[in-house]
């Protein structure tokens, strides 16, 4: 829950240095929200981000916005990326952003899928930081994350981050993870 997450301002080492030294790896949530089961893109992105050195938490399929937000908070992620191919992006993206705000965790949200060009300005206005459409490469996504996502500031920035015990994660919202 949001209230249990303690945050302190980032310490003096810059985020870039921390990333380069490997002391603070970005934590990213890859979420598959809505009813569509097309997880090819989400899985490729999750794996490419992991291979690029980020820590990735994948929600699995058929998540509601509430479930994604609960996982994002519980896993204390630095950004949420959503994959939507069902045409419900205009409903689901703003919902996730809204719920994150209400929970006091305005984590940046980006995503991709089959999203018509003309819907993108509206999604950006709703707070979606970047929208990747078919044909985008995993490298473009990785570069964008490197250029735009910063660690949100946690305890022990220069040492490895304290983790809550796995038992604290509910089975419902906990995602799979892999570290490099």
């Amino acid at each position: 829950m949001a209230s249990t997450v303690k945050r302190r301002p980032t310490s003096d080492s810059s985020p870039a240095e921390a990333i380069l030294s490997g002391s603070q790896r970005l934590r990213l949530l890859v979420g598959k929200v809505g009813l569509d089961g097309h997880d090819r893109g989400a899985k490729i992105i999750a794996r490419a981000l992991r291979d690029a050195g980020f820590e990735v938490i994948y929600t699995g399929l058929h998540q509601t916005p509430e479930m994604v937000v609960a996982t994002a908070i519980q896993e204390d992620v630095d950004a949420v990326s959503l994959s939507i191919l069902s045409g419900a992006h205009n409903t689901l993206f703003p919902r996730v952003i809204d719920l994150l705000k209400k929970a006091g965790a305005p984590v940046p949200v980006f995503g991709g899928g089959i999203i018509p060009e003309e819907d993108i300005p509206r999604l950006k206005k709703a707070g979606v930081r970047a929208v990747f459409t078919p044909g985008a490469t995993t490298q473009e996504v990785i570069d964008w994350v490197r250029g735009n996502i910063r660690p949100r500031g946690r305890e022990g920035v220069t040492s490895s981050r304290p983790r809550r015990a796995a038992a604290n994660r509910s089975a419902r919202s906990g995602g799979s993870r892999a570290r490099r």
Partner: protein
Amino acid sequence: MKREGTGVLTRRRHRGDWEEEILKPQLRKSPERAREFTTLSGVPVPRLATPEDLEGWEPEEKLGFPGQYPFTRGPHPTMYRGKLWTMRQFSGFGTAVDTNKRYRYLLSHGQTGLSVAFDMPTLMGLDSDDPRSEGEVGREGVAIDTLADMETLFHAIPLGEVSTSMTINAPAAVLLAMYLAVARKQGVDWSNVRGTIQNDILKEYIAQKEWIYPPRPSLRIIVDMIAFCARQVPQWNTVSISGYHIREAGSTAAQELAFTLADGVGYVQACVEAGLAVDEFAPRLSFFFNAHSDFFEEIAKFRAARRIWAKIMRERFHAREPRSWMLRTHAQTAGCSLTAQQPHNNIVRVALQALSAVLGGTQSLHTNSMDETLGLPTEKAVTIALRTQQILAEESGVASTIDPLAGSYFLESLTDTLEREALDLMGSIDRMGGIVQAIEQGFPQREIAEASFRYQQQLERGEKVMVGVNRYREGEDSPIDVLKIPPTVESTQIRRLKRIRKERDAAVVRKTLDELLACAQAGQNLMPAMVRAVEAYASVGEICGALKAPFGEYREAKTYF
């Protein structure tokens, strides 16, 4: 007369001479475009296929004749000379009223069969007013909640005269029950009802991921449907065993073949274990393959599929009826090959893919519309896609002779290669105890994720090409029209559902749902009770929801690697 071996030796010598005297100097002068050529799926492609690639290859054993075991050349004796493939464009969007209009438009333009696309909530067995359906109603297909929607969907379309394909899996039994109820209301005898329901839950766990119950109870429902149709709806194709989605999820051609045919084995096995005689139901199993971009690989895949299935049905399941050995298939061009960039190029891709399906001997075909990576297709785009099939069928001449590429050194050796690779994978699945166990262990899922990641990397390194995406890019894409689903669809559909709920007899709904549950628990065939429940206007969500009590819900492991 020469001894048999002499010809081979002579050929080898000639080839050796050619390589030394003609090929090598040329290669020294200008090397080939790549060091290695492979198919889209990574199968090595030889520079030149020769008779040596077919040593020991017997046409009688490998090909037979059309309509004859092992059906490599096609399931029917006259193929497209007798009857062209069925041109079946998949469509559905918005409310049943919108889709009904599109169907009548397509039928009036020469389409010969209907194919229903349902929206996401329907595919997941949810009603339009379920909170999880928000934003998804009528978006990717038509929203169906109760029999009232189905009546509207087929309004003024005589079900005794058209054949209908319904792409639905987890809640398939409910939708079949609704279709039969509409037929009854139209006064059409069930023995005259023709069509196909996808009903292939195994590939849902593998690839498309729209499920409700775990694999074992899901298989039981399917066995019930197969048994019911064998007796009461004899012209209905009960399962369309689908490789399409497996391929779209990123599999190779051989994986598509192997996992699809292994799913088929799973259904046959389940029915046999339930006490059905194989020849009673096997002729009504049909298939559905992808027609992807590697032209020869796809043709080879269709031909290999027929040969493998014929052998499995005859030798493993001891089917006696030739119709049980025969693999009949639908094909759809590859959605994942279409590009949002320079979308008009998609027309050309679709034409080539459609040609491969036709040369592969498909029984029916859906050609994708050029705008499908942007959204649902517009009427104009759908018409071009349909015209593409008509041009192939009636202008190009390819439908005039049967299996015209048979005997090609390259195509026949590629057919053999795909057959061998698929059989290897199927052997692994058998060793795991069958497809259900393989799915439970995540084997096909992992294999596909691996292949799709590999392909993505090849694209990003430029080793595989998508024109307009990683080569020949343009700054600006010429915009094309996209079909808009008005936001009012959802509220209209929800109002309609609420009205039905108010008008129907709640006590009858309750009673029929209780009877259905009793059948589920007693292990009786679910279908008669299912038909009674839909006739009482019980909704898709109510029926699927009720059956979660005895059957449970499926949850997938949340892995991406």
